[in-house]
């Protein structure tokens, strides 16, 4: 890596957004380097692991489609389990990308620039993983594939618009479409850069086609900027709406533990919380192994930790209110759900794991020392991922397995297929992500260059980034 010449610093924070001083070419070269560099041993090793997990997904999916949902651990009353837990978990993970890309863009948070591509890709892949489940968790996916869509069928039957599952279909497909467009639009200038720097004709043609004729003219940039902001505007409500609608799957029901008005904001906060944790879990190794430390700096990481602290507090507040309302409402079923079934029932371990990971662990980010410690934050982000999965398990399985009538209470245990599907989606996610790292730049090169120029010409910032 080129030696730092000049610090370009953010006006508000002493920590730099771009560590060192580079010209455009240096940035270009350093950020495209991991694409042009041949796949190393490390990449192949990761890819092999990811592919084998993906293989598990294929086997588990095939077995499920061949035999039926009975190969999962679900029963009556636990009609939903791993399928829906994984769906909600993955959808939640996607939220970080949208938040970083769209909302932070609209708020002109400059620190988003280095991590947005990364986070957007994660959104996309997480939504792909999530989308798998609503389809395969149905008893007859071959019908679910199109009966859930509003099309004018000859027998005049439409989906039922009162059902939150129908809303889910709209919410999630919209989310996927917008995320894909947003990600791709941001990629276009970088694809052009890849086209221009590619060494082989095949690559030049492929990247050229994907770059859609980008020449970097002022007009291109003007149109690009407008559409980018427009898409950001479209995405912004999605950050709130998607998980709100997912939460309606539960909130509109009558089941104690589901029937809760706090769910929409609590789910959104949880989604951002888990999404940021997932970005951290991947970003920390990626910035090291891909040589991105100079653009993804401690400032980025620290900011992300702060977001996790805030959203973690939201989530904790959600837990608090759930328990408070369960007591305050005087509903004996809800009270039993929160104070007996969850805290002391057969699945209490999951509950306490959730409390530890989601309530206790983020509190360490109050302290700058830990907020800026790479091993601490990485480990914490992993724990938060676990905690958020446990939260969904608590909501979905623990609520269902003991509801109103004790005569139909059943325990739940996942089967190898459930575990393989979960591990398999992690494999799918990882595979897509590793391929992403191999074929497109992990950091939005154009935007970093732009940021460099912005910071360099900002009269409030001097040459070394010190604020006047």
């Amino acid at each position, binding site marked *: 890596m080129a030696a730092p010449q000049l610090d370009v610093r953010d006006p508000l924070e002493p920590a730099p957004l771009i560590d060192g001083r580079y010209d455009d070419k240096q940035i270009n070269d350093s950020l495209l380097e991991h694409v042009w560099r041949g796949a190393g041993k490390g990449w192949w090793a990761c890819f092999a692991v990811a592919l084998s997990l993906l293989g598990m997904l294929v086997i588990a999916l095939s077995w499920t489609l061949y*035999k*039926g*949902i*009975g*190969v999962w*651990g*679900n*029963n*009556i*009353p*636990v*009609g*939903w389990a791993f399928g829906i837990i994984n769906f909600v978990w993955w959808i939640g993970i996607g939220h970080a990308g949208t938040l970083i890309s769209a909302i932070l863009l609209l708020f002109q948070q400059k620190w988003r620039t280095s991590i947005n591509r990364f986070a957007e890709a994660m959104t996309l892949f997480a939504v792909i993983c999530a989308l798998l489940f609503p389809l395969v*968790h*149905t*008893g*007859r*996916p*071959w*019908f*679910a594939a199109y*009966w*859930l869509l509003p099309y004018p069928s000859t027998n005049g*039957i*439409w*989906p*039922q618009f*009162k*059902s*939150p*599952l*129908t809303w889910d*279909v709209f919410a999630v497909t919209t989310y996927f479409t917008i995320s894909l467009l947003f990600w791709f639009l941001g990629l276009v200038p970088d694809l052009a850069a890849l086209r221009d720097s590619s060494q082989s004709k095949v690559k030049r043609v492929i990247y050229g086609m994907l770059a859609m004729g980008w020449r970097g003219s002022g007009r291109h940039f003007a149109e690009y900027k407008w559409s980018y902001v427009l898409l950001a505007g479209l995405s912004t409500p999605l950050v709130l709406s998607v998980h709100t609608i997912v939460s309606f*799957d539960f909130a*509109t*029901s*009558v*089941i104690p533990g589901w029937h809760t008005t706090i769910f929409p904001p609590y789910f959104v906060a949880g989604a951002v919380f888990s999404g940021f944790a997932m970005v951290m879990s991947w970003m920390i190794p990626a910035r090291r192994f891909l040589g991105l430390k100079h653009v993804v700096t401690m400032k980025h990481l620290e900011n992300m930790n702060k977001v996790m602290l805030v959203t973690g507090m939201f989530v904790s507040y959600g837990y608090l209110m759930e328990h408070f309302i369960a007591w305050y409402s005087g509903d*004996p*079923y809800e*009270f*039993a759900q929160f104070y*007996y*079934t969850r805290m002391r*029932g057969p699945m209490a371990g999951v509950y306490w794991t959730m409390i530890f990971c989601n309530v206790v662990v983020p509190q360490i980010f109050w302290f700058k020392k830990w907020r800026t410690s790479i091993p601490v934050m990485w480990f914490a982000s992993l724990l938060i991922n676990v905690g958020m999965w446990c939260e969904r398990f608590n909501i979905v399985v623990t609520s*269902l397995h*003991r*509801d*109103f*009538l*004790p*005569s*139909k*209470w*059943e*325990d739940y245990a996942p089967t190898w297929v459930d575990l393989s599907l979960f591990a398999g989606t992690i494999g799918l996610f990882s595979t897509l992500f590793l391929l992403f790292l191999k074929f497109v730049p992990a950091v939005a090169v154009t935007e970093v260059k732009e940021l460099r120029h912005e910071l360099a010409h900002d009269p409030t910032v001097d040459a070394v980034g010190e604020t006047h």
Partner: protein
Amino acid sequence: MSCDDNHEARTRDRDRRRRSLPIAGQAKASAKTYWTSAEDRARKGVPVGAANEFPGGTFDVKPGEEGTTRRGFMQVASLSTAMAAVGAACRKPPQKIVPFVNRPEEVTPGNPLHFATAYALDGYASGLLVESHEGRPTKIEGNPAHPQTLGATTAFEQNLVLSVYDDDRAKQIRAGARPLAWRTFLAEAAVRANTLAENRGAGLRFLTAPTTSPLLADLRRRVLERFPGAKFVSYASLADDGAAEGAKLAFGKPLVPRHKVASANVILSLDADFLGEGSEQTRLSREFAARREPSRQMSRLYVAEPALTVTGAMADHRLRLRGSEVGDFLTSLVSMLASRGLTALAPLASLTHGQRQWDPRWLVAVATDLERNRGNSLVIVGRRQPTAVHALAAALNAALGNLGNTVEFAAPLTSDTLAGAAPLAALAGDIAGGAVDTLVITAPNPVYGAPADLKFAKLLERVPNTIYHGLYEDETAAACKTIIPAAHPLESWSDLRATDGTVSIVQPLIAPLWGGVQEADVLAAFVGEGDVGAHALLKKFWQAQGKAPGDFEGNWERWLADGIVPGTATAAEAGLTVDGNALAQALTPMLAPNRQQGIEIAFAGDAKVYDGRFANSVWLQELPHPITKLTWDNAAMLSEKTAAALDVEDGDIVEISSRDRRIDAPVLRVPGHVDDCVTLPLGYGRAGAEKVAEGIGFNAGALRVSEAFWYDRGVTLAKTGRKVKFSITQDHWLMAPDGRDAPPPAVETSLAEVLDPKSHFHQEIEERRPNPEHPLPFIHKPVDYSGQQYKWAMAIDLNKCTGCSACVVACQSENNITTVGKENVRKGREMQWIRIDRYYTGTFADPEVVIQPLACVHCETAPCEYVCPVNATVHSDEGLNEMVYNRCIGTRYCSNNCPYKVRRFNYLNYVKDYTAARELGMNPDVTVRTRGIMEKCTYCVQRIERKRISTRIEGRAIQDGELETACQQGCPTRAIVFGSLNDSNSKVSQAHADPRRYDLLHEIGTRPRTVHLARVRNPNPELAVAAEGAAGPKGGHH
């Protein structure tokens, strides 16, 4: 989609099989030959060739075309679709065919017919009506005209339409491995008979089940005429010999009691599960329920028993007693009553009784109640009790003046009075002595059911000729030389008597599917009439009886149609007296206290497989046991205290040793079980060739010996360290689990509370049902159904429901509900639409039980409906919550949002392994559900629609009572009523207006259409304090 193709293929397959069935009235010969190949085909699982695929030129497909070209395939596929739509008439075969002009009278394709017949479990008849679709029996109902069933059934009887199509049934007459034709067998039997006749038949023995059949009795007489040296022996593994022997001691002649609980104000049941087993079960359930209406006339039930039974769960007061202590209790009761002025009991007052293990107040309360209700009280003793207890109870009933009112005694109607261990032991002695040359066995599986000390299988090796006539290739078939597959009761001509003597003619619903032979034919073979046929024998016999003066044919048809032969009831004995002194003398040695210490073993007939004969039934194996809710298993049942002393928990396998015999059995702790006793249900651990029964449970019979047929003392239990996992559908949940102060799911109260209109009960229950003055707050405006012609609703009276589970199987049969197997039950995926919830209150040791059957309650504002994304569950104008199977994509969201959790999901393709024969028994009015589909109670919508059609044709409305759901129809106690709430006089309207009515989970605002009526207990005020102390629902275990 591929699913549709499969469906078409299945439809085609099924149509073909149905066309080829041996249906009564059609040519029999061709049917027989066909079935050989179908059976082959079903067993091997390979499709027969194209030429056989559409036999007899049913339609025109050239061989080779089908399956080889797309066009050929499409032709067949489209053809079968068309056939399914318009019947098989759209493409004429090239050969000349003759239309079905002279179709059998009364057969309209698509409309079922009902035939009266009868079935006997241990000799005595239950009159049935069998629904038949185009010659296939599909559903069993009780015959309302029959004095025993009164229109209801038991779970065993419902099971007949499954067992008749059981592919595991014995199918081939064989001698060893050599297949025989019936005529060959007859020829060989004739030769043997001639040889035997030379010796007056001295070496000939018949081992039969106890039967009341007049025809079989006549054949037996004729056999004995020809072979005076021959002997007939009856054996039933669950024989009820004590009653007849006891009556012999008490009254001087063997008589059997006929109970009439309808006239009993106070009932004391001593180890008698009269609501759950026995030949009077169905009738007694009805009579009992009729007296449980909460009024001053409500009867009171005391039960003393070792393990909770259906009857014990209905008790007002229940006493845990070991089986061997029942006699002690009864002698104490007798002496107490003798001291209170029942002078007839004075000679019996000094009989020894053991130390008192029971609450003395219980005894006093029972004695007082019995005395107060002289003439209207009843003491019932169960079949497990020894002769002495039966004799004493008979004397007690006589002294209380109950004879002729609540109990009558009549001459036994079975061919042999005794059918227990004693006659079988005598036969075993004959065999061991080498006196038996030919043994004909028509009893169901005696090798399995015989006491272990007889070593019956080994004994059979010493008999040169053993002929077994049985339904299955079971343990007995394996031990016998000649096997004759028995015709199923639904395939047979016979006659049977009910407990009151009324004769029913058993008529077949279907020609024998696998060439089964009827019992009458086997006996007739020994008088040279083996080829006459049971029908001819039966008709000839009844013609000779002279019961039908004049037009025999006309009378015969009326008997068949009605299901009973009028005027055949036998009178009870009148003027019976007990000689107290003689009885006391006889009883003194018999009642010598058995003070052998240790744990007592109690054998029990099983509520699901009976004595093992139903072990191959998937319906009954998967039926949750009425009390333990155990499926696909039996268990060594213990009290919590005994289990703790042995340091064992549920599922721990223990080695049980008794008299040098050992078995391994898993332990199940059961609330209400007596301490120091282990109950072992019989009928499991089968070792025959039946596939369903294979490997299920343990054979408790291996510990059973002739001299301790029901109870034995001094067994030891040792922990082995191994464990099994039970498939139990409901744990021992308390009514108020997890410390929640929610209203308990099932409402119960006492008679005093119900009768007092200002009581706490009436205030509380008011909050559990809609109150027009204080409606629940609600988002939606409730739909007004008053403009509809019908507003369907149901009510279930917990005060009548005994939890016998007949409704569960009736529903399963009516609605083609599949079974899922042991593993899937354990995972919580059982499919029965009716769940009989059983809640305990009080302590584990002495709980009270409330039974609450629950199926879909058809909420007016159903939480399942609004969450379905594809409109697969919707509401009908008449208030039915409907399931649209075709539209269901299986998100299971509806089930999640169902507060009652009464929806059932096809997690796997459970129906794919149905045999060709099994499919014949399906109800054609109800869709068979495939994998990935939700299902639940439909209020038997197919019955509603069928009745709607027939009444519309007649231009009238459906009358209250003429439409019954399957569960309602099967219910022995009439606990379930169904009808329209828009008819204010209907029974269901009255039930909905009952002060005991409550809506389960009313507070959620679901407005259920099925409501429950609270259970009422009628405790003796003298014992009420004790009962209340134990009735607190706040317990701590689960």
